[in-house]
């Protein structure tokens, strides 16, 4: 960061010429002693005279540092003079460009003569303006006006632009004359500059150009006139602004100008806003109707919204949809009757817009209509009504949904249950516990899913009761719900406590298996002894459930248990399941040393009874970021049956290693080369070749 002090000249972003009345603040000096002596500075300046854009900036930075250190001090005056003299010298263009950028920050009116002398020279006029556009003071404006008389081509246009940016009122006469210039680019620039100057005479000049000009000059004049009106409106001169907007709104002007003027008219209409908007909604020009609709939200007055809403029936369908949308954005309930009526519109996209608007403007009274629409319609309308049902605001809406839920027809009941979930109605849990036992299967499943989101640790025992009483798909969904809700309990508060408590009193084998499955997915260490015990249960189904539960475990903690089952079980299914689980656990992220992970894969490979199990081990090995893993995978490259998996594993491991460190060892290169030489898979070969190329 210490190079920060060197940056002013390095960067020299370009400046804006405002804030003339501000007092210049200077950066604090870097040190108490500021050795920016005139001679030293001159010497440094002389070093940059031949600077060009592709040369080192080191000397420029030194100049910048010296200016920065002198900024605000008496010696800066003399240094500024040296910079001005530099501009008059035979220094290179690039060096003068640099100095002008410096002056744009550090320059004062003292630099005006030097900079002004460059203004009429097309080759250096732009770089002079970098500085002049930013330096405050009337001397700059005088210089620009003087130069304007003599300048030609792009230099002249640049000066016009800068006068506009500086808002120089004294330039209005000269600029007004240039609006008739034979060179259209000059005329356009002059009109645009007038548009930036906050001056009555500039506005009048633009009005005149607007009426008589053609082509690009006319277009520029219309834009400039709009700017004048916007400026007047911003200053609170709404009548004057309104008069300009009205002129520009006239038929015959280009539509973008009319649209902009229409917006201005609305914004300056005061107590006649409703009248103006209604008039525009009655226009035969769609863009005018549209801008009136789009501006409605900015106005946001109840009487205006009401008046606009009343016009909805007179609009064509596309504009009706736009207006419904705008009414929703306004958020004023005065539009609700119109929006509700539009839900019965003959055009489906108007109905869709209206149904969505109900979600914003509606209240408890809309619940029935929305539920019925969701239950009876399809497609976009159903989706819109559903979304609105989820978004309707107010606590009384939740109460209404809960009130209707128990006695609703199945289709409506499903939607009401989903609403409970989407609206996050936590007090719905007791009701949902009942609907989770509903006669209708869809209602049951939706209720169980909603409970997953809404139930808390306090509800877990009741959920387990439901789980044990359920069957088939319901039980599977309930298992997921119990796991999710158990995870809402803090880790140190026994996430599996309720399930463990239910286990001893559960006699039904299927129900017991269901609980063991849940324990595996919860992954609370307190459940591990129970699952380990279950491995020795006399019931095969229980053993089976225990192996699966341990295989689902979120950490490698039960790896040894699974390895033992895989090594010693007499049940082939259990052996297979345990081996799969063991390989899965070996692949989980862990802080254990890499060699332990390697041992796990070696053990697994030694137990793999057939090709498919060996492939599974190689697949897991591919996720291990170590050279040993790559080496192990490579040892199967010559095995015809395992070759494909071995190649994939080698490439995957190598990719990960190159990503972390581009250095590729000779051994790794050899292994990758072996893959390249032996593979029949083009994609694998390309990947391996790419890795060799990437690696160093």
């Amino acid at each position: 960061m210490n190079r920060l002090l060197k940056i002013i000249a390095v960067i020299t972003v370009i400046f804006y010429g405002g804030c003339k009345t501000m007092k210049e603040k200077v950066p604090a000096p870097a040190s108490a002693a500021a050795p920016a002596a005139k001679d030293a500075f001159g010497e440094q300046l002389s070093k940059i005279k031949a600077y060009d854009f592709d040369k080192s900036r080191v000397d420029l930075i030194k100049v910048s540092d010296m200016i920065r250190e002198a900024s605000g001090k008496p010696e800066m005056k003399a240094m500024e003079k040296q910079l001005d003299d530099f501009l008059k010298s035979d220094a290179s263009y690039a060096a003068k460009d640099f100095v002008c950028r410096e002056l744009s920050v550090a320059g004062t009116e003292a630099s005006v003569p030097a900079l002004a002398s460059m203004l009429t020279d097309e080759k250096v006029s732009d770089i002079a303006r970098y500085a002049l556009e930013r330096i405050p003071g009337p001397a700059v404006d005088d210089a620009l006006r003087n130069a304007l008389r003599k300048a030609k081509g792009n230099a002249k246009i640049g000066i016009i632009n800068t006068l506009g940016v500086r808002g120089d009122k004294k330039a209005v006469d000269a600029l007004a004359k240039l609006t008739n210039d034979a060179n259209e680019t000059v005329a356009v620039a002059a009109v645009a500059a007038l548009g930036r100057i906050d001056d009555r005479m500039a506005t009048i000049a633009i009005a005149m150009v607007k009426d008589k000009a053609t082509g690009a000059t006319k277009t520029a004049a219309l834009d400039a006139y709009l700017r004048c009106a916007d400026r007047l409106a911003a200053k609170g001169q709404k009548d004057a602004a309104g008069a300009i907007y009205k002129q520009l709104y006239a038929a015959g002007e280009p539509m973008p100008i009319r649209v902009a003027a229409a917006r201005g008219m609305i914004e300056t209409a005061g107590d006649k806003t409703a009248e103006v908007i209604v008039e525009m909604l009655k226009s035969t020009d769609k863009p005018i109707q549209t801008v009136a609709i789009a501006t409605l939200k900015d106005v946001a007055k109840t009487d205006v919204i009401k008046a606009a809403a009343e016009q909805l029936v007179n609009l064509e369908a596309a504009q009706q949809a736009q207006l419904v949308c705008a009414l929703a954005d306004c958020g004023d309930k005065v539009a609700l009757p119109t929006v509700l009526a539009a839900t019965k519109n003959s055009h489906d996209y108007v109905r869709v817009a209206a149904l969505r608007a109900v979600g914003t403007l509606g209240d408890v009274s809309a619940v029935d209509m929305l539920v019925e629409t969701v239950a009876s319609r399809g497609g976009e309308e159903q989706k819109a009504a559903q979304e609105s049902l989820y978004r309707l605001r107010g606590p009384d809406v939740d109460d209404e949904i809960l009130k209707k839920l128990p006695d609703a027809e199945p289709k409506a009941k499903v939607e009401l249950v989903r609403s409970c979930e989407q609206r996050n109605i936590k007090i719905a849990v007791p009701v949902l516990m009942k609907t989770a036992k509903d006669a209708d299967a869809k209602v049951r499943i939706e209720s169980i899913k909603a409970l997953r989101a809404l139930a808390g640790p306090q509800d877990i025992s009741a959920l387990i009761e439901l789980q044990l009483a359920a069957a088939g798909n319901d039980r599977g969904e309930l298992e997921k719900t119990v796991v999710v809700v158990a995870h809402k309990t803090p880790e140190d508060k026994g996430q599996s406590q309720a399930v463990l408590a239910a286990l001893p009193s559960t006699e039904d084998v299927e129900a017991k298996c269901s609980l063991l499955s849940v324990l595996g997915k919860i992954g609370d260490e307190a459940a591990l002894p129970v699952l380990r015990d279950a491995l020795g249960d006399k019931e095969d189904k229980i053993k089976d459930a225990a192996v699966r539960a341990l295989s689902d475990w979120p950490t490698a903690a039960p790896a040894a248990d699974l390895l033992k089952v895989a090594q010693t079980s007499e049940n082939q299914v259990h052996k297979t399941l345990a081996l799969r689980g063991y390989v899965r656990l070996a692949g989980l992220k862990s802080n254990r040393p890499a060699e332990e992970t390697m041992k796990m894969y070696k053990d697994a490979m030694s137990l793999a009874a057939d090709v498919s199990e060996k492939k599974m081990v190689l697949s897991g090995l591919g996720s291990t970021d170590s050279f040993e893993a790559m080496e192990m995978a490579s040892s199967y490259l010559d095995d015809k049956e395992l070759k494909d998996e071995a190649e994939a594993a080698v490439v995957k491991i190598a990719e990960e290693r190159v990503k972390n460190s581009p250095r590729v060892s000779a051994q790794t290169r050899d292994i990758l080369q072996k893959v390249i030489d032996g593979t029949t898979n083009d994609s694998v070969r390309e990947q391996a070749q790419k890795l060799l190329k990437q690696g160093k």
Partner: protein
Amino acid sequence: MKVNLNRRRFLKQTAGAAIGGIALPYIIPARVLGADGGVAPSNRITMAGIGLGMQGPSNMRQFLQEGDCRVVAICDIDKNNLRDGVNLVNSHYGNKDCAGYADFREVLSRSDIDTVEISVPDHWHAIVAIEAARAGKDIYCEKPLSHDLRQGRAMCDAVKRYGTAWQTGSWQRSEERFRYVCELVRNGRIGKIKHIEVALYPGHRDFAGTKGQEKIGTAPAELDYDTWLGPAPYSPYCPARVHRNWRWNLDYGGGQLMDWVGHHVDIAHWSMGLDYTGPVEVEGKGEFPVKGVWNSPTDYDVNVKYADGLTMLITSRIKYALGKEWTDESGVKWYGEKGWICVTRGGMDSEPEDVVREKIGTNDIRLYESPGHWRNFLDCVKSRKLTIAPAEIAHRSATVGHLGQIAMLLGRKIRFKPETEEIIDDATAARMLGTEMRSPWQV
């Protein structure tokens, strides 16, 4: 804080059930505009792509997928980019109808074009965008909005003046995860937010493979180099200066800082309801290269303060800011009274851990939901609703970057008045809010 890798799950999936998918509306679905599920030609939104060198093709591909959008013209001042852009469009439609232009003004003069997609270098944004607004076109424009604060203000004024539908390429707003995290923050799930850390990328990424190619030379025949420079100060051609790497020179872009404020500061602003305001104090330190054409800061810390006391660090020190062990992705981290939330494009995380699994309820504050960034633009062209990333909002996030650059360049704290967009009591800094344009260009 120590993270238990076995237990903590940095959520890489979308938040799904936790977020609760409500797609906010487009109002005139494409399907109803034409018969048989197609879109009648008269109801298609016609579009021209301006600037096909970098983000342009990617944006074009997005719009080409939309049935109610028809890309009819491509504009680029590099003949190779122009050819590739036209081919991209024609091969998609299976015809040769797409027109090619070198001059954007010719494109804007076509009355049959409704919208333009602008992916030109930053120093060109204001000119093309303001001309497009004047011509009555609706605009999709890449971020950052502007090359300097004054140009950004002029763009916003023009967009407002002409009632332009505008979408900025800050597409993270249209991503479910970013919206969800912003809703968590807005709804106080980690309490009052005191501090935000926005981690952006360091360095200069060599997108074009032209790093070090700085010898002054003649521009290739296919490139109209003088127009490429346009309003920027004159500098002779060299490959490292132009295509795909222009962002690293401050005459044309704003380095990594400006490239990314339009994404992550934008998200930070959204989360805090700061979309229409800005900071009151900004100070920063930057590491600016002293050699080479690429002179934008490679490392930076920008400290920002808002009126209510909220502070934000924008830094290139990603790991320092996000504190994540397993990624180098840029992102945002909020620190509240009750914990923290972190989001990147790859995932989200929080402390307490379950915060990023919480549901956003109906009576919670819900933010604008977009069906997809490019889709949202087209919908708003039709509905005239405000898009999810309008110009004014993009201007406010870009402003933070512009002020950060000025503060770094001056090496001191600057004070800012967001209501009037003025720098207070520092006329030198105030000079730097705008950039003079090379003649004949102006906005």
